[in-house]
């Protein structure tokens, strides 16, 4: 069957009334979560993971995908009105968007962000639709050794390439891999790292780790800092985008989309790089570069589009290869596990209804988000006026439900707070948290492929360098580690000379 007829089948799934409802709940919740500073889609999906025990897989993934896309829309509202990005990828949007809001052009900034997100989300989803199937055909030829090497590339890319420091990124990754090892080894039945606690035999739950790092850690960090009350800019007037705004926005939307998608689809997922690149590109191409820094609309339109397109791009390796490259994608991957569905290249063949229904619901969700965000921008802005004491009190109450609800064991709560403490330290000392989550979830898969490859090769470790594909992937991983180091060394010696 060709892609278009599969997609049509997907729409038949996505347009069922119950699934439309799940999508609507997802995008609404996602937008609200995106607006709230400090809450992100990864945390929200983690808290909702228990839903996988009571609803069908398709419904759960439509809900999760709605949250994922919705949070991208909501994040821009916070950056523009509060100058505190709701999620990391909206940092660039805050640069020009907040300046526009201060000049009384908040409505126009929100509109260009929402329409740009729609354009980019749709282009990105189109990209996903047509890139994923050929990628699967290619990946079906992968053996366990190749798969292991591909995961090594993903590990290195998410921890060493992005972020301020390679060392801190890798440390975060190693911590995550260690967490992922806790519990009974499925192949041999041996308990690992359980410290003698029977509660740890089943391993540490993803929910505990995600909620600990993202909710408890963040709350501890913010409580320990001196409070600085950021002021929310009131959204006034009905004035949306003028004709000039449209003329200055549509090209940045398209350029941002084309830029963001490949960045997201490569193993080095993440929206920080493409949003920054888009910002500087638009600054360079703008007819009014002098406006940059004072509220240029291109500086909102381009990065916001890049942000959303890369969010769609992240779903390509996730659905086609079972390879998560962001914390949110990693948590979605663990949802597949809880349905007993094996993520990987066979997913598209074994679960066509689920995957194509999910992709179709992304198109539907984008339309819903455009409708939700354009006329209702004021309603979302209201969420920002929730006082911090109640917001963080509420976050901790929900964190408790999410954790205690799994097992009714206070040990899980203690574990949650311990991981929250680690999350606090990571935030305080600028360690990225995404590698820890990815390491924890992808680590066990990598170990499985490693052992499988070693079994096939009868214990010969050279299997990883004698298979051409595996060797090329490992070379890429080494280059990703070494090239930035060399560049840094060179710039340091240049500096001295």
């Amino acid at each position, binding site marked *: 069957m060709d892609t278009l007829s599969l997609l049509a089948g997907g729409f038949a799934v996505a347009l069922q009334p119950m699934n439309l409802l799940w999508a609507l709940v997802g995008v609404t919740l996602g937008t609200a979560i995106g607006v709230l500073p400090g809450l992100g889609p990864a945390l929200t999906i983690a808290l*909702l993971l*228990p*839903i996988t*025990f*009571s609803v069908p897989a398709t419904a759960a993934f439509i809900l999760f995908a709605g949250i994922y896309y919705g949070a991208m829309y909501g994040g821009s509202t916070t950056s523009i009105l509060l100058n505190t990005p709701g999620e990391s990828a909206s940092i660039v949007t805050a640069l020009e968007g907040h300046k526009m809001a201060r000049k009384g052009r908040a409505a126009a900034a929100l509109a260009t962000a929402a329409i740009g997100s729609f354009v980019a989300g749709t282009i990105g989803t189109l990209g996903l639709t047509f890139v994923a199937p050929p990628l699967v055909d290619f990946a079906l030829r992968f053996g366990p050794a190749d798969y292991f090497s591909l995961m090594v590339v993903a590990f290195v890319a998410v921890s060493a390439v992005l972020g301020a420091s390679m*060392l*801190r990124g*890798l*440390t975060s990754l*190693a*911590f995550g*891999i*260690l967490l992922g*090892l806790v519990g009974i*080894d499925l*192949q*041999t039945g*041996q*308990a*690992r*790292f359980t*410290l003698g606690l029977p509660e740890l035999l089943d391993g540490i739950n993803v929910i505990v780790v995600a909620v600990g790092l993202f909710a*408890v850690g963040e*709350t*501890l960090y*913010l*409580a*320990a*800092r*001196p*409070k600085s009350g950021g002021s929310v800019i009131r959204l006034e007037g009905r004035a949306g985008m003028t004709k000039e705004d449209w003329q200055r926005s549509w090209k940045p939307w398209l350029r941002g989309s084309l830029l963001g998608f490949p960045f997201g689809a490569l193993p080095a997922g993440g929206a920080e790089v493409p949003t920054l690149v888009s910002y500087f590109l638009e600054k360079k191409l703008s007819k009014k570069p002098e406006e940059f820094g004072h509220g240029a609309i291109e500086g909102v339109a381009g990065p916001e589009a890049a942000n959303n397109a890369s969010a769609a791009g992240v779903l390509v390796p996730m659905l086609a290869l079972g390879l998560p490259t962001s914390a949110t994608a990693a948590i979605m991957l663990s949802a597949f596990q809880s349905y007993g569905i094996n993520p990987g290249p066979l997913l598209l063949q074994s679960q066509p209804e689920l995957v194509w229904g999910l992709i179709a619901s992304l198109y539907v969700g984008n339309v819903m988000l455009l409708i939700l965000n354009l006329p209702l921008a004021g309603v979302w802005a209201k969420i920002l006026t929730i006082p*911090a*004491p*109640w917001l*963080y*009190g*509420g976050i*901790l*109450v929900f964190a*408790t*439900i999410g954790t205690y*609800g*799994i097992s*009714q064991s*206070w040990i899980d*709560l*203690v574990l949650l*707070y311990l991981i929250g403490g680690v999350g606090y*330290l990571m935030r*305080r*000392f*600028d360690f990225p948290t995404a590698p820890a989550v990815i390491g924890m979830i992808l*680590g066990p898969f*990598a*170990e499985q492929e*490693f*052992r499988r490859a*070693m*079994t096939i090769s009868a*214990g010969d470790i050279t299997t990883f360098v004698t298979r051409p594909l595996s060797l090329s992937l490992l070379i890429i991983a080494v280059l990703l580690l070494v090239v930035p180091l060399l560049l840094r060394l060179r710039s340091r010696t240049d500096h001295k000379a």
Partner: protein
Amino acid sequence: MDRLRKPETLLALGVIALGLLALYETTQIPVSPMYARVGPTAVAYVASALLIGLGGALLVQSASGRWVSAPQESEAEFDLRALGWLLLGLVLNVGLIGPLGFIPASMLLFACTARAFGSRRPLRDLLIGLILAAVAYFGFAGLLDINIGAGLLEGLI
């Protein structure tokens, strides 16, 4: 400068300590000879070694002064009082959720957290915490079909 770098050094030592603990625990995993080649310990050794190695590198970085946190971090004052309230809330929550149930424990957690974030009206916060916890308990738990510790209050309703 030395004073400012100290937390980073401690953190690096902590990473090394975690790696050493992992290494010790790895040596305690029994390995049957059948799986001797790639048994349950191979990746565990790798993870332990990574943590020790990376911790060592972080230590070198902090000792040579190349790892300095962003200025606003090292200069920011540490709000001990707020952190104290928050920790009190967390401890109360763990301690009381078993004997009293989810709603009272959450109510206290909410009020303590609100206090940590500068709220000065504990009675109002307790009331909001009660409502929020009740809504969360019956809404969220019902939706997700999960069982959250029921105590006195939950049983009454």
